[in-house]
């Protein structure tokens, strides 16, 4: 075990993956000598050479197109998109190509080796174009896996899991936690499973579902709520697609209440899917409407970011509203 922040944990995961399998490659804008604008790929070029860790020209659609081809060939590309806000030029390569490669070819070809890493989310005064949370766009795309870690330990284990998973994975990293989330992380090679949510905290009155940086926010709200004797169960979804319906449904069958929280705008956010599925699965057990605490239905602001965000106070109020319904 070592104390690491999330960036170090990610760097460690990449290092581990590259050391263990020479087919693993890391590339993207500024990921070479510089180690990426957040330094997630620090020292990898120095250690594994320019052929396996390198800068690409500034073209996201090319990065992912190139990565798809590499994966089809049998390499294990880990492509970085500098900010999740800049993943959209590659949307076609991800949604029409990565996601459908295996299906359309009847499994003759696949890009299962592909992992796409991108820092996402708000809370760093990044404004309009350095704050978006686009997970829901990808979660509507069968064939992809979408993964979001909540802390350093999870980041390393899930990233190794993603790299070794035989499906294309979009791995969103909560950049607000890059340096803020520090914890004990095994230096050994370990993987956390994709497709499995984790019950982070057990409770009996209400189930709270979130992922990534929002888990911390939810935990703050829970602390407030528990002082008022509301017993909260907190679930980190971890994998957004395919998501772990069973774990959430079982929890709601027990608590009778559900709140989902994410930074992305309300409308069409992944919270809608969770709510829609769970209201059907747990209809007779629900004691109050499923609540969603999310970003506003606006583009991401800057000066009023604090007001925009689904912070712990908003979550806390929604918990209260749910239990007092």
């Amino acid at each position: 075990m070592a104390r690491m922040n999330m960036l170090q944990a990610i760097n460690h995961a990449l290092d581990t993956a590259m050391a263990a399998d020479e087919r693993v490659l890391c590339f993207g804008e500024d990921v070479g000598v510089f180690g990426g604008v957040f330094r997630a790929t620090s020292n990898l070029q120095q250690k594994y050479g320019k052929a396996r860790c390198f800068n690409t020209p500034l073209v996201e659609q090319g990065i992912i197109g190139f990565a798809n081809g590499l994966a089809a060939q049998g390499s294990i590309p880990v492509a970085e998109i500098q900010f999740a806000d800049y993943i959209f030029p590659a949307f076609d390569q991800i949604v029409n190509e990565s996601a459908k490669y295996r299906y359309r070819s009847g499994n003759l070809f696949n890009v299962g080796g592909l992992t796409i890493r991108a820092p996402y989310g708000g809370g760093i005064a990044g404004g309009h174009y350095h704050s978006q949370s686009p997970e829901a766009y990808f979660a509507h795309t069968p064939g992809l896996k979408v993964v979001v870690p909540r802390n350093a330990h999870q980041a390393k284990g899930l990233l190794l899991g993603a790299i070794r998973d035989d499906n294309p994975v979009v791995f969103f990293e909560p950049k607000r936690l890059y340096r803020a989330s520090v914890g004990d992380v095994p230096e050994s090679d370990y993987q956390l499973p994709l497709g499995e949510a984790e019950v982070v905290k057990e409770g009996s009155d209400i189930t709270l579902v979130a992922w990534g940086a929002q888990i911390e926010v939810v935990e703050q709200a829970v602390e407030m709520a528990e002082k008022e004797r509301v017993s909260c169960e907190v679930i980190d979804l971890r994998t957004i697609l395919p998501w772990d319906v069973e774990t959430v449904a079982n929890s709601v069958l027990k608590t009778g209440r559900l709140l989902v929280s994410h930074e992305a705008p309300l409308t069409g956010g992944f919270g809608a899917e969770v709510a829609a599925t769970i209201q059907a699965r747990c209809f007779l057990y629900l004691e109050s409407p499923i609540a969603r605490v999310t970003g506003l239905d606006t583009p991401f602001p800057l000066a009023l970011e604090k007001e925009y965000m689904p912070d712990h106070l908003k979550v806390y109020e929604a918990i209260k509203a749910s239990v007092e319904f």
Partner: protein
Amino acid sequence: MTTPSPEDVHTPMLTDGDEFRIPTYKLLQQDGTLYEGAEAPHLERDKALRMYQAMVFTRVLDERMLAAQRQGRLSFYMQCTGEEAAVIGSAAALDDADVIMAQYREQGALAYRGFTTDEFMNQLFGNELDYGKGRQMPVHYGSTRLNYVTISSPLATQIPQAVGYAYGQKLAGDGHCTITYFGEGAASEGDFHAALNMAAVHKVPVIFLCRNNGYAISTPTIEQFAAEGVAPRAFGYRMHVIRVDGNDILAVYEATRVARRMAVEDNRPVLIEAMTYRLAGHSSSDDPSSYRSKKEEEAWREKDPLLRMQRWLTDKGWWSEDDEKRLQESMRREVLDTMKRAEKRPPPPLESLVTDVYDEVTPALAEQLDQLKAHIRKYPDAYPKSASQVTGGD
């Protein structure tokens, strides 16, 4: 980065590159003889005949399948007609283990590599033997055995993928390259630009073969780009380029052979622009008469690449009228017989709806399939293709 910087200038001189036009490489004339000063590439008789037979097969397949589409037996078809030399000449210059990432009009390359008539038909009819499990429209072939990556409809996406594939080949050090085919229309996509740039920067053994066939559906090249063709774009990436008469199989073969050597031996990507013409409609859904003239078509029909090679072969004494007749007949028969077999085969199993989305069927998909089965069991008549698979319970 070896040549010295050119002189500075002190008066503003703008250029659009018109001084630097790219010539067209040609070897074979329409009458089957070589241009003066031209030398035929070294080609063994067997190989030359393999190439020619692939051309004829492609032509026969196209004719028969278009007819089948017209008869309502097939939903959709796309012809390679007119472009056989560009496609087969280039494929023949490769090692069969080199990888092909094509657009959709390159069945000739697949035929050259030995895709069987059965394999063609199974895909076209999306039956239970289709490798693609009936998920894509006709002509979306793929073959791992033949290193032919399954066709994908979104245009140009395969071009940067070919660069990535070839980068992997370079790392693997297996001495192979990737060729990617695309139309002059697809070359307008952003993915084309990304691909050429990345290939040049990362020194990737990839060959970009642009079939400039004059049209993207109804859009003529003059509305596709202002330059004479796609070739001068290579200059923007300091990539080697050669423009070739796409109806001249010898020139295409030789250009690709030279390009392949640069790609594989020096890791220098090459762009080849094959000047040709789409003699047929864009697809079986298209009628070109509303956007181009019969006269233009006729002029290009005169340049038929098949006839040109046939004449060359005949001149060499490698081919006769008799051979031609026999070949045509046997291929026609084979295509028709195989089609009859393929169209009668059942569709892929119901399970194939949910397999291959992921490496393993997820619980949610298994559940969706179960619900679907239960539903079909209730209404077997409404789902004739799959009712028999679910009745009897499971």
